[in-house]
């Protein structure tokens, strides 16, 4: 597993860990490692793992996402010990967590806002990959695994949002499951299958709880694959050129472990502001009203991290097409390694793409604005233009610019570029 690009397997029997101390402890480590090469594996992937020496702070967000995933699983497992997945009891059990369970409010606010943080970090991570061309040869599968993680995260977050069984939980579940009714012929049967009844109800809540508990561990497994793919060829870097030798790299530990730790501290400060001062800012007040199948809230909005997809869904007047484009906006990401025809990875050396790139985050923010507001007047127009541009960007601009533009000359090596920059 995770053999380095230099080809030497980390775990050949007898390759005792270099750092194993002398004496009894060292003998114990060598005894274990001969049978299960754990220490040698860690040593290889952390101490020896050569990392480009020029990574900037945008490269902090991968490990940060991993840490938040752990935080979500730890808080989630404890919350599940206090939560009751039944339509008649779920809402009250969440209120009990908030009022009666010791530190229940803290666990729930960490979990609730942690979901937002997870998406924020992953979106930054994704846009970093887009800017520096991290999806290009030979990292296509690394990118695809990342998109798989995003899809799993969306499913997990949606089902978690349903569990408190408030008004927004109930109607989000209704609207999202009804998306599948757009499928011709078998749509209604699929929706009944998803619900386990004639509406969203107790069977729906039960299965969502089961899956919400399962999927994070699936995400952990895909993150493992993502890391194996990453360590196969190593991190991309802001210059987007391959490293050619020891002068271009530094060991991951201690150089990037310390940098990631610093980034983590800054992030925890930011996260704490949400947990302790504005814990409900990112959620809807309607979700503190128990679910009522007879009344729809006047304005249904998803959580902020799903607003762009929701805006695309609403911008298309046809139900089936709206659903296709909304799902398609995510699935399109799978094709990015082949839609970008430029062989230069980093946008720094791409005079046209460097500027056009920024239209995409602007477009996604516009879609977010549209998704958050009632569909009337100018919001509808902005939504339709932004939806069009989203697909135009990926399907037309990306392949075209790669063919048309003349990239600037690339530096000879990472080491040379770092030295001439004078930093």
């Amino acid at each position, binding site marked *: 597993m995770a053999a380095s690009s230099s080809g030497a397997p980390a775990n050949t029997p007898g390759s005792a860990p270099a750092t194993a101390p002398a004496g009894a402890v060292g003998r114990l480590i060598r005894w274990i490692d001969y049978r299960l090469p754990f220490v040698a594996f860690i040593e290889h992937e952390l101490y020896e793992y050569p990392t480009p020496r020029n990574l900037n702070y945008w490269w902090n967000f991968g490990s940060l996402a991993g840490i938040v995933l752990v935080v979500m699983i730890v808080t989630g497992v404890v919350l599940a010990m206090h939560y009751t997945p039944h339509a008649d009891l779920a809402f009250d059990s969440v209120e009990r967590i908030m009022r009666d369970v010791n530190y229940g409010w803290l666990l729930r606010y960490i979990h609730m806002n942690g979901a937002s943080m997870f998406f924020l970090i992953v979106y930054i991570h994704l846009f970093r990959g887009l800017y520096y061309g991290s999806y290009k040869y030979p990292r296509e599968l690394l990118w695809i695994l990342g998109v798989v993680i995003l899809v799993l995260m969306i499913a997990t977050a949606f089902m978690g949002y349903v569990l408190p069984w408030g008004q927004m939980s109930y109607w989000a579940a209704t609207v999202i499951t009804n998306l599948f009714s757009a499928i011709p012929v078998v749509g209604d049967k699929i929706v*009944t299958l998803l619900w386990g*009844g004639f509406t969203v*109800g107790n069977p729906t809540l039960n299965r969502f709880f089961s899956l919400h508990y399962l999927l994070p561990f699936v995400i952990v497994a895909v993150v493992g694959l993502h890391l194996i793919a990453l360590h196969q060829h190593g991190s991309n870097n802001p210059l987007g050129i391959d490293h050619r030798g020891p002068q271009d790299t530094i060991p991951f530990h201690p150089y990037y472990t310390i940098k990631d730790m610093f980034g983590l501290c800054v992030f925890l400060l930011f996260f704490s502001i949400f947990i302790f001062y504005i814990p409900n800012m990112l959620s809807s007040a309607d979700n503190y009203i128990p679910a009522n199948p007879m009344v*729809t809230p006047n*304005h249904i909005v998803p959580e902020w991290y799903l607003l762009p997809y929701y805006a695309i869904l609403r911008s298309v007047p046809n*139900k089936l097409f709206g659903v296709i484009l909304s799902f398609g906006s995510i699935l399109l990401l799978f094709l990015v390694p082949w839609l970008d025809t430029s062989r230069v990875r980093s946008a720094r050396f791409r005079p046209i793409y460097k500027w056009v790139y920024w239209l995409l985050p602007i477009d996604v923010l516009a879609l977010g604005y549209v998704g958050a507001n009632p569909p009337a007047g100018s919001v509808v127009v902005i939504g339709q233009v932004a939806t069009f541009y989203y697909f135009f960007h990926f399907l037309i601009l990306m392949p075209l610019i790669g063919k048309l533009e003349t990239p600037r000359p690339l530096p000879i090596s990472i080491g040379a570029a770092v030295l001439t920059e004078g930093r």
Partner: protein
Amino acid sequence: MADTAQAHVTPGHGVGDPLGDDGGSRRDFLLLSAGALGGIGAAIAVWPFIDSLNPARDTLALSTTEVDLAPVQVGQRLTVAWRGKPVFINHRPPEEIKAAQDVDVASLRDPQPDSARVKKPEWLVVVGVCTHLGCIPLGNKPGDDRGPFGGWFCPCHGSVYDTSARIRQGPAPQNLFVPPYEFTSDTAVKIG
């Protein structure tokens, strides 16, 4: 290494293969048929897991609702629960009936004459679930926004229904669904 080299020789074409070509094709047949049967068996074994997610028998049993219509005034709209969903019962005044009947059916998105949607013109019974994404349209309570056609208006994505609960504007593809129902007397209806 010699053993592994031999193992990679295609069965049936190996120098040392006692079965020859005939034996090879027999082996292919066995492999294919065993593989196909195993695949079908696995697919069949998956079905109970999927079907267990469909509505259970106790869920299916809750299927009828009876409603006394005697106290419902002309122009009044009533909401009752059937299978956990709201059903809208509209005691339509003559102008609403006329508006519903005077529409050019061919111009509708989901063409249905009013007569096909009611058993008695003064009583409209429909499932109050928007056919777009399942929200409950407004219009059944006094003071609700009923939309430009005087029927119902879905606040989620702006679908507009007329006084026969047919889709007139917005993203919904179909008219509000008419549930199976029958009048058990002049003033009582059984839904389901």
